[in-house]
């Protein structure tokens, strides 16, 4: 299998803050892999993910996703690249408080033309995904804020999956859920990721999730925090 993500000699420091910097000497991710990044909060997880998704650009080094050097892209091009190839799930508060569940699910398609094409009928494909994630029926028309936290996370998963992006990035998506719901959420997420043949990279501080993944990588093994 080929590498879908490749990072080499990456150095990033927050501009103006100076105190915190991150170094990634080497990191690679194979297509179709499901990988768990383990690290305590404050260990640079968010910075790592922002670099991976092309929201932040390293001062030196190279980040390649799907063979594209993110550093070589302009800002708007990086934003479009993210829209086309990434599905992102946050820890919580994933949804726009206005708009229905359906509005939230189809949101990325507004910024990604080829994902829109792949999705075919946006509504049908959103409803299908919601159905698979256990959110069938009249829920789709409901206001996003009316849902429980567990339901909201599943809507976020549907949004990440719609239009089949190559990479699903999840930042502690289950930390706001209780044990039972965690398991249920991960089950449906994994099924959908497998079906879409996507690559999954999840960040968590929870060691107990490890058996579900192909590979577990402690963040401190690949990324070093530095005092700049």
């Amino acid at each position, binding site marked *: 299998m080929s590498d879908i993500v490749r990072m080499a000699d990456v150095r990033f420091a927050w501009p103006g803050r100076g105190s915190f910097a991150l170094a990634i000497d080497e990191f690679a991710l194979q297509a179709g892999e499901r990988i768990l990044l383990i690290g305590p909060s404050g260990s640079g997880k968010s910075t790592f993910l922002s670099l991976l998704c092309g929201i932040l650009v390293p001062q030196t080094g190279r980040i390649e996703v799907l063979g594209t050097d993110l550093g070589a892209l302009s*800002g708007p091009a990086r934003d479009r690249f993210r829209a086309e190839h990434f599905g992102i799930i946050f820890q919580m508060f994933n949804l726009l408080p206005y708009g229905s569940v359906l509005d939230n699910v189809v949101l990325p398609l507004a*910024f990604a033309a080829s994902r829109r094409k792949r999705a075919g009928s946006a509504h049908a494909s959103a409803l299908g995904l919601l159905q698979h994630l256990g959110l069938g029926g009249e829920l789709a028309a409901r206001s996003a804020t009316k849902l429980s936290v567990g339901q909201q996370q599943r809507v976020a998963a549907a949004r990440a999956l719609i239009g089949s992006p190559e990479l699903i990035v999840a930042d502690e998506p289950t930390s706001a859920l209780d044990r039972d719901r965690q398991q249920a959420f991960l089950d449906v997420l994994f099924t959908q990721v497998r079906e879409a043949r996507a690559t999954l990279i999840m960040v968590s501080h929870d060691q107990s999730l490890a058996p579900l993944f192909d590979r577990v990588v402690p963040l401190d093994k690949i990324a070093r925090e530095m005092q700049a």
Partner: protein
Amino acid sequence: MTVLRLALQSLANRWLTALLTVLAIAVSVILLLGVEKVRTGARQSFADTISGTDLIVGARSGSLQLLLYSVFRIGNATNNITWPSYQDIASSPDIAWTVPLSLGDSHRGFRVLGTTPEYFTRYRYRQTHMLQFSAGRPFSDLFDAVIGADVAQTLGYKVGDPIVVAHGAGAVSFVEHEDKPFRVSGILAKTGTPVDRTVHVSLEAIEAIHVDWQSGARIPGQAISAEEARTMDLRPKAITAALIGLKSKLASFRVQRAINEYRQEPLSAILPGAALQELWGLVGTAETALSAVSAMVVATALLGMVTMILTTLNERRREMAILRSVGARPRTILGLLTAEAVVLIIAGTGLGVALLYAGLWVLQPFIDRAYGLHLAIDPPGAREALLLGGIILAGVAAGLLPAVRAYRLSLADGMTVRV
């Protein structure tokens, strides 16, 4: 398209604050345009105080003074025109008609004007409007009086009521012509001009009540009763001013010069339109103040809008992070916030204009009747369009402030939300 839809949805989610902001903008627009309407209406009403009269003649004085005492009943004439001079001028071939005016007495604060019945047919206001009687008719008897609408309303007079004229122009007078009382023969309809505050009597009546007077006081021991006065020669010896209508307006300047150079007596003739404009230039500074105040109100409303968007910005940083994560550019965030401001400002302006015209339509007849102020209901003119455009532009510019802040925040936050 997506941006506009998102902006609308976001506003709908905060519909109460959005509605209040729109209302604040609407009210400020109503005020600004309303002041503009009243301003133009007042200016027009002012310029329309007297029309159809080509020249006003009085003793030599400044044009403003002559206009003030002859039309607005403010201040006093320095001197009179002798009757022979008036007759002489009235008979000149360019002149179509003249109406003499004799001032100097009052009734409970309202000026008394001695004139001829022609006054009621010759006087025009608001271009072509003639004086109308709401009750009674012009004076026919020597001691008949026709009162203006405000006089009748303030003092509660009806046709047939007796009134006593006081000597001098003060509100309180100790010297009255109580020996020769008048009777109200007619009441004029509201005009919105100084006519409303005037008591009209015949020129002969002015002469009659002063027949036993000399130098502003009764001649002792020479009292002449009202009945005796009727039998006397009451041809006036002098008048205060006269309204003149010309056969051709083209002769205005020629006749004016002729009167100004009249040899027998120092006289002045003025063109009412020009004098009114000059007077408006003096009182018109108030309108600038009004406009300035309403501009301040608009600025306040726009500040309110900016505050409303700014206060929600912090809680919406999550929203920005979500949009960024699905691929929205920072520029889209900028557009989103700007679109919100644009929607608010356009909705506010539109609502303001709609409410203003609805209000005008309902209140116009009332304002016309109560204040004699005619507010025209016509589509917004170039000046109004400019004002509205200015408000919208200022709103968009003000809306850029929170938008730029959101843009900066979303650049700095990236995918993480630092609250």
